[in-house]
């Protein structure tokens, strides 16, 4: 046969999906389109689009069976999309006489249905022509799900609202639901890979996949999905962990990689030059009592830098800064050096819930104790602890007249907190700043500090665009240069200026949350873009106080309003409310799925199925009554059942004789038994009598016993459904 003839031998290639498969695909497409259009279109438009999908699928099928050329189909689909835009706009532009509301609905419906029509015709035609384009269909479906649920990333656990609200109000974590949705989306997208197949196969494959997916889901449902690289438990040494953690934190102020830590503690200047692209909540603070900060800012401190390393300030050794708790409490409360004057402070107890790992606990300044708390929701919170803080309740002007460094300080301690770069300009500048002070306050440390603060606030320009990183002394480069920089520069410059005037100062790292962008409530959500560095000064008899610089000039956009809904959801989760405050009745029980009953029902159903199957098996095997014709048939059926149990099944379209020939080596007598049966069935005049049939059947059984290993036969006895395949 030559090549041309070989080509001609091929059957005509107009195979298309059967209608049930097409229907299944339509359902999947419809669901995807609903997801896509829900935020965009009216209900009427969505309905019309789903209808258009059905029409489009049938049209594409029709075009395919009529062997319409693919480019023609695609051009027609493109024209349809074009028409969608034109017709939608035309309806809006012309007065149709339906009134504005109806016109809008009509235009919407026409636009989206024509768009869907064009799109589906193009997609279907492509994928029917070449299998590889099925990928586009899969992408369409998966894209719908991803598009809908993309808002849930980055701890935005209250999105998408329609799903999350409902889930929370029923006491379910939407994350689980979304994982389930993901599984369903994968299954649904598999429907898109179907070609010409039977519905039975579709259902069977889908059920199998569903089972696998359900098992995986059960295994993975409590796994915390997080972008953070958790360096713990990777077998790293302490040093490596530190390095790795530092690297992760390096870009915290800018790129928002989600890892906690705020400003880079090793080199605070080494921070990117723009605000983080992705704002994620890093922690939740729940106040036990009403509390509003005096200056409108909550300072959550994480670490302080007080030792000068020749370039910038770094974390000092463990014997200094003992008022700052830098370890997480394991089992017992950790206490810090107490504040000196209690009546100058307000005791504020808070509970902190970290959403992102931090190397040190965040705590409202100035914390005196950190105690362990039970994590109310390990899926969302990485750690929880209680904090007792003493915040300064005294007005700053009441501090006037106090000295910074008490006499009781040892010289080393004094030197430590006054250490600054070997640069006379600091002292010279601070002298100039304090020179103009009222002579009455000329020696007052607090007054000097205020003067320096004012100077920086007036002269400094807040911008993230300059980081002076390459300078030998970035603080000097900032202070004696452009005066343009961000919190780290201001904090360092202020600290060095304070120190040059004999005021004990250090830089605190953490988050500063502005109360004015919140809407109240006892929950404060800390976002990663609130990372901050600020100076602290020591006042004799009061202790370390926050002494932040607020530059008057800035090119920063105003802060974003905190998402109140997310704040409240996280707050309620922190308060261990399973419904995240979404249920109308706060005491209502979350919806429980009766897993036990479902399992029990499943087991009972399984047991009933097995019992029934074995009953039928036994009945068919033992039943021997009736006319001679029936008895021979039942003997034959029992033999076939036995073969079916062992997995020897007659194939569809295989004649009984061919089946017997196929099993010739296994059981030579089967051919004889088959002939006997066929002689009965096809009305032979010389039918073998029942005794012969019985003998043949016995022989087949003996041959099977001889030719098959025991385990195979035992498996056959156990098999409950072999009879199902007898036909």
């Amino acid at each position, binding site marked *: 046969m030559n090549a041309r003839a070989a080509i001609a*031998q091929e059957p005509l290639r107009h195979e298309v999906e059967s209608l049930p498969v097409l229907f299944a695909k339509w359902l999947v497409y419809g669901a995807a389109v609903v997801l896509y259009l829900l935020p965009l279109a009216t209900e009427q438009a969505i309905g019309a689009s789903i209808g258009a999908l059905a029409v489009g699928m049938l049209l594409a099928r029709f075009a395919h069976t009529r062997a319409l050329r693919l480019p023609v189909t695609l051009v027609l689909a493109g024209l349809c999309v074009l028409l969608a835009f034109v017709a939608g706009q035309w309806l809006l532009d012309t007065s149709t006489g339906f009134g504005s509301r109806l016109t809008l609905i009509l235009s919407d419906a026409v636009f989206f249905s024509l768009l869907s029509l064009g799109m589906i015709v193009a997609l279907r035609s492509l994928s029917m022509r070449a299998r590889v384009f099925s990928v586009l269909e899969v992408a369409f479906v998966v894209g719908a799900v991803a598009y809908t649920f993309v808002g849930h990333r980055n701890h935005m656990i209250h999105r998408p609202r329609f799903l999350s609200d409902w889930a929370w109000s029923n006491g379910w974590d939407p994350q689980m639901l979304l994982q389930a949705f993901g599984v369903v989306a994968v299954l649904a997208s598999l429907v898109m890979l179907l070609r010409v197949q039977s519905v039975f196969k579709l259902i069977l494959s889908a059920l199998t996949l569903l089972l696998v997916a359900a098992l995986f889901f059960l295994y993975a449902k409590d796994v915390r999905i997080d972008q953070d690289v958790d360096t713990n438990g990777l077998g790293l040494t302490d040093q490596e962990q530190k390095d790795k953690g530092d690297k992760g934190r390096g870009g915290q102020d800018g790129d928002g990689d989600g890892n906690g830590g705020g400003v880079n503690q090793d080199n605070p200047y080494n921070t990117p030059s723009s605000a983080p692209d992705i704002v994620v909540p890093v922690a939740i603070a729940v106040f036990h009592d009403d509390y509003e900060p005096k200056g409108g800012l909550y300072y959550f401190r994480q670490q302080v830098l007080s030792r000068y390393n020749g370039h910038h300030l770094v974390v000092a050794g463990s014997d200094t800064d003992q008022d700052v708790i830098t370890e997480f409490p394991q089992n017992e409360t950790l206490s810090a050096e107490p504040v000196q004057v209690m009546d100058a402070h307000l005791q504020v107890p808070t509970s902190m819930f970290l959403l992102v790992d931090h190397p040190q606990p965040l705590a409202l300044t100035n914390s005196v104790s950190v105690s362990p708390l039970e994590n109310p929701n390990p899926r969302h919170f990485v750690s929880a602890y209680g904090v007792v803080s003493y915040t300064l309740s005294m007005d700053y002007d009441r501090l006037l007249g106090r000295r910074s460094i008490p006499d009781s300080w040892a010289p080393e301690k004094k030197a430590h907190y006054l250490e600054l770069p070997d640069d006379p300009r600091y002292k010279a500048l601070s002298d100039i700043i304090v020179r103009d002070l009222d002579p009455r306050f000329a020696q007052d440390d607090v007054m000097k500090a205020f003067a320096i603060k004012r100077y920086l606030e007036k002269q400094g320009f807040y911008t993230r665009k300059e980081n002076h990183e390459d300078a030998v002394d970035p603080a000097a480069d900032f202070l004696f240069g452009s005066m343009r920089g961000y919190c780290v520069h201001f904090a360092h410059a202020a600290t060095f200026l304070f120190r040059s005037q004999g005021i004990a100062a250090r830089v605190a790292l953490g988050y500063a949350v502005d109360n004015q962008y919140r809407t109240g409530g006892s929950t404060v959500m800390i976002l990663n873009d609130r990372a901050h560095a600020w100076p602290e000064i020591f006042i004799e008899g009061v202790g370390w106080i926050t002494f932040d610089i607020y530059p008057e000039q800035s090119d920063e956009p105003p802060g974003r309003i905190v998402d109140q809904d997310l704040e409240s959801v996280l707050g309620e989760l922190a308060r261990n409310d399973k419904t995240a405050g979404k249920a109308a009745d706060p005491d209502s029980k979350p919806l429980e799925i009766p897993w036990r009953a479902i399992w029990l029902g499943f087991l009972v159903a399984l047991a009933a199925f097995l019992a029934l199957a074995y009953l039928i098996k036994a009945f068919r095997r033992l039943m021997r009554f009736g006319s001679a014709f029936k008895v021979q048939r039942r003997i034959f059926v029992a033999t076939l059942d036995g073969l079916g149990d062992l997995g020897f099944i007659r194939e569809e379209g295989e004649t009984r004789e061919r089946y017997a020939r196929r099993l010739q080596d296994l059981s030579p007598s089967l051919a004889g038994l088959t002939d006997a049966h066929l002689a009965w*069935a096809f*009305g032979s005049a010389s039918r073998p009598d029942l005794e012969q049939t019985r003998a043949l059947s016995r022989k087949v059984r003996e041959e099977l016993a001889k030719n098959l290993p025991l385990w195979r036969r035992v498996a056959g006895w156990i098999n409950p459904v072999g009879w199902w395949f007898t036909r």
Partner: protein
Amino acid sequence: MFETNDPTPDTREHQPIDSMEGARAVAEKLRARMRHDVMGRDEVIELVLVALFGDGHLLLEDYPGSGKTTLAKALGNAIIDDLPDDEIPDFRRIQFTPDLLPSDVTGVMVFDTDSNTFHFRRGPVFAYVVLVDEINRTSPKVQSALLEAMAEKQVTVDNVSHRLDELFFVIATQNPLDSIGTYPLPLAQLDRFLFKIRMEHVNRAAELEILESWGKPRKACTLPSVNRGDVVEARHFIRHNVRVTKSIHECLVDIAQTIRDDRRCTQGVSTRSLVLAIPALQTLAMLRGRDYVSPDDIEHLAVPLFQHRLALVPGVSNPTDIVRAALPKALETLSRTTLRA
């Protein structure tokens, strides 16, 4: 006015065939004779037997020198003419050429000066086994003259019909490749052949055997031959004694329907083909020692029975696939009936 020239009726000098074994013995004798003369063609020989006892005709599509004449001759020689009076020979071969005329096949009226009347002189179709070589090389006129003989078992010359022998069996051949200057048989004519068999080249062993036996003085075939009357009687016996159930009929109709519904076919199989199929199926069942037609017989014969009767859409050239594709569903239905009440 028609004048019929009937051959004399059967004389019954032989053992009457009244059992399946008797019928089978006749067939086995023929099979043994043919196998003795033709090597490596067992499957074709079986189909020849099926066609002979199934009262059909055979179209062999094969290459020159593949043994078709030997086969036909062997069959003709194996049948003993037990009616010497009718002057009908066992075997005739007609080579079809473009210049052949119908009368060269059927016979011709000859004027007899003694009696001043026209006499009919029989043509070569008056034989038990007729080998029609290269049937597609002659004009449609001659082809259709042969057709009447095949379908009606009679020839008409000058408005007078002459009956052929009841055992009239045509083996026609055509070359599948060499189609220049031929008159391909139209479907309507192909439809009258029971089988079209495509003969493949014999296998290596058989070919070697043929070469070895060539040139040696052949022993005369000592195998028993059969009487013409035996064959005819066996035919009758098979027709009446091999059971064909209704389910078999349904299966045939199902297959025909599926083939007709196939998009690759512009014309499906005819009802006549189903009618012709029944005796063929019965014969195969008999050859296999059964007195009933089973699904296996249908599976075995469906391709040679139906493949030459289909008209295909352009671009499709293999009818075998279409017939094969029609089988599983119908056979499954048929097989399932046996377990049902």
